[in-house]
């Protein structure tokens, strides 16, 4: 497996002349923009990792006159806080990325769905948005962005749940198909992209897809902003080239006693010390929307798992059986095993349940609860039992 080692990058937070980049983009055709993004190999930075260029291409191909670009700023994955920092530091690049996406797909309207927990950012974001609207008008591109606020529901980060929320409903994921690129927000073709993805897309237009593709590995092109927390002497936000091993990451950010790293938040994977060297952080190994949590030997992995399961039990939308009831059963199950009220072998039944949740849940939330569950129970079985 390709291993690029750990190197810091400065693309996302780099101050740029947005107007120049946008003028460059608007001088390009829709196809040219999409081609650049496709060439860059950019995959969605929210966690799911769908190729951004393809998403734009599909949306562009739709014949509808009304289309939307939606920026997913409902950053709720435990351990993820990079989008807040991006919106705080370089909101104009988010707006710019949306305008470029709009140009590429033929959308004249954008929505930013900002989680309620980040409402305090709004006054400054509005000031920046006002400037942006003025600039884009000067350039002569007809494009408007509006904010929509979340109100404390993790599941609204799921794209179709987010549309439901904007449309004024409970944030319950929809059946797919249809996919957002054909029928998304208000049933119109929609490209929904993460905050960081949009900024990255703008940087790709600035530097060219061919230049961007030099960063990262075959499966994980480019760089990524990581949200680093837990048992680390230097928690915070770091942009790193993709393709490092967990070991290299721990060497840089660990406290010398790291026993596990949870990659990708509560819905991600727990990597134990014995797998640090062989595990690459990226789509070829453990994918992540940027959440990296380090645990040292003082931590009980039972408590970690219990905390995650409580989180999912509350944050599941509740509509589908595997997720709504499955989360409760996993939580109750490990409690019973811990208390000795169920045999330790019951964990095997729970792993099977987690597998059912992975294949039978309606959306990504239920499908990924099993990631943390399986990887923690399998690697820290004794901590879970005793």
């Amino acid at each position, binding site marked *: 497996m390709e291993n690029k080692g750990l190197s810091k990058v400065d693309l996302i937070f780099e101050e740029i002349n947005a107007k120049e980049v946008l003028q460059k983009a608007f001088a390009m055709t829709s196809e040219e923009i999409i081609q650049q993004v496709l060439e860059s190999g950019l995959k969605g930075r929210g966690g799911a990792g769908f190729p951004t260029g393809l998403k734009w291409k599909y949306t562009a191909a739709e014949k509808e006159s009304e289309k939307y670009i939606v920026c997913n700023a409902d950053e709720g994955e435990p351990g993820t806080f990079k989008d807040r920092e991006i919106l705080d530091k370089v909101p104009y690049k988010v707006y710019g990325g949306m305008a470029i996406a709009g140009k590429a797909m033929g959308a004249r309207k954008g929505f930013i769905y900002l989680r309620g927990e980040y409402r305090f950012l709004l006054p400054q974001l509005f000031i920046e948005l006002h400037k942006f609207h003025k600039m884009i008008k000067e350039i002569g591109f007809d494009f408007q962005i509006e904010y929509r606020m979340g109100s404390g*529901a993790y*599941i609204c980060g799921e794209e179709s749940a987010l549309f439901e929320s904007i449309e004024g409903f*409970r944030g319950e994921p929809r*059946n797919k*198909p249809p996919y957002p690129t054909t029928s998304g927000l208000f049933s119109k073709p929609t490209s929904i992209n993460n905050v960081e993805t949009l900024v990255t897309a703008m940087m790709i237009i600035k530097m060219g897809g061919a230049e961007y593709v030099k960063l990262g590995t075959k499966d994980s092109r480019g760089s990524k902003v990581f949200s680093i927390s837990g048992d680390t002497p230097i928690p915070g936000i770091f942009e790193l080239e993709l393709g490092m091993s967990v070991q290299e990451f721990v060497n840089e950010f660990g406290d010398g006693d790291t026993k596990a790293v949870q990659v990708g938040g509560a819905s991600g994977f727990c990597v134990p010390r014995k797998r640090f060297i062989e595990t690459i952080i990226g789509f070829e190994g453990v994918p992540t929307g940027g959440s990296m949590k380090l645990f040292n030997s003082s931590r009980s992995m039972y408590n970690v798992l219990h905390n995650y399961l409580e989180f*999912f*039990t*509350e*944050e*599941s*939308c*509740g*509509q*589908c*059986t*595997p997720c*709504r*009831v*499955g*989360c*409760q*059963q996993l939580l*109750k*199950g490990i409690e*019973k095993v811990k208390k000795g009220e*169920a045999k330790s072998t019951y964990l095997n*039944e729970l792993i*099977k*349940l987690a597998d*059912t949740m*992975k*294949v*039978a*849940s*309606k959306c990504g939330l239920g*499908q990924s609860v099993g990631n943390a569950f399986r990887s923690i129970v399998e690697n820290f079985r004794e901590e879970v039992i005793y």
Partner: protein
Amino acid sequence: MITLKINDQLAKVKEGTTVLNAAKSLGINIPTLCNHQDLCVAGNCRVCVVEQKGARTLIASCAMPVSEGMEIHTNSLKVRNARKHIVELLLSEHRADCTKCYKNQNCELQTLANEFSFGEHIFFDLTEDHPYSIDRSSPSFSKDDSKCIRCQRCVRTCAELQHVSAIAVSNKGSEMKVSSFHNRPMSHVVCTNCGQCVNRCPTGALTEKTYIDQVWDAIYDPDKHVVVQTAPAVRVALGEDLGYDPGQRVTGKMVTALRQIGFDSVLDTDFTADLTIMEEGTELLTRLKKILVDGDKKLALPMFTSCSPGWIKFIEHKYPQMLNNLSTCKSPQQMFGALAKTFYAQKRNIDPSKIVSVSVMPCTAKKFEADRPEMRSSGYKDVDFVLTTRELAVMIRQAGIDFRALEESKYDSIMGSSTGAAVIFGATGGVMEAALRTAYEIVTGRSVPFKNLDITPVRGMEGVKEATIKIEGTKKEWNFLEGAELKVAIAHGLVNANKLVKAVSTGKASYHFIEIMACPGGCIGGGGQPIPTNIDIRKKRMEAIYSEDSGMSLRKSHENPEVIAIYKEFLEEPNGHKSHELLHTHYVQRESY
């Protein structure tokens, strides 16, 4: 056409077909829970998951449209394991007191449990983690959240079919549930008691309030004279709960069964349906005259029918400004009740305080209607107990009656004779047709100008129907109607009713007379009818209604000999003083939530 493979068999189906229906076309059954033919796709119970070759996850067959070359396996190991888990998960949050449950042996979850989850359960019981209380506040039905499996059929029913949304999904995660507005008692919200949710609930979470024991007690009480009336739609649906296919008329056997159960007199709501036509038809003509000739400003047009208690409660909540448009006629059930303890008591020389008046209805809202304080014009509770079609089937089974083997028999008299016009009350458009058959004849002295008296434009399953009848050759006292075009409309299902009322209230449409039934298809699709229900079943019941009508010798309400007699002996004239006292009512404004 799309070609796909299901369990290695080739299927050719129309584009847009779901995998579930494609499988059905091959005779492959995939279990479902949240899916219901009358409702939009939810895809949330996940019981119907199947394996699609090449797909990362299983897919919900109810929500997945077919695509060319798809390869589906409905019974692979992966599918079976997942399905068993899902059924067990549902069981773990379901308070399974099956032997005490009203839906025992008529529960879709129980059926699935039978197929997938016998023996030891894998998962822990979660019901203890979720405190619950059973909402018994409505006289029509109970809501027991501890039996709810969150399939949301009820919520979709209330929204999509009824445009009421008295219940909606609330909270999220493990706390997600089906709630009224801020969990208020169902008796204190906008619920119309139509029971359509009850009809579609796969478990015992929503069940009608049953009065079976009270009725048995009355029957066994030697001091009581127990009369029973049966609504028109019951006779074309009861059979379904007793092993017959939909669409089978069992009128005569039902009458015999009721007699064997021990009712002292087996009577027919159809009698008061005919009476309703006399009262309502006269009211309509009088209203037209007062408005068109006398310029009366207090009366309102169009006039709405008032037989459907779900519809009445709907308009009381949602369009209180239009209560004047309602006919003041009580429903046939309540006319019957008022007469049972007055006219019938006198004629049979029975102390009305000893009469227990029972009705068998296709309807749960009738239970509420009977409880309304307005419905005591006999000086007693006019109708003591309302049973649904389903409850009657239970009583027949309890009595150990071999229903198929029963001889047919006829209703008792008095208050047991009827016409075809009364029978068709049970189907959408039926009241309109019955009213037109009589009103046209009152005005012109001739039969309605339709072949065999079948006013086909008002029949059928279309949500909103319209018709215009030109009135020609009027009698002298009605000559102000000469050449007039009587414009009528019909809606069934409150979502359609709402469309029609909205159009009327905003002036976008104008009619003289509108029939509204709260339930899809009219009473044949009532909330108290046998479960399951779907459009095919309702159509079959409807056909049965119309064939019952066409088979009757008398088909106009004003020709019913007992109706003629009751006006002569007791009521004097339609809309007369006595009628107003006993057969008419008034309405109240209710809250908007």
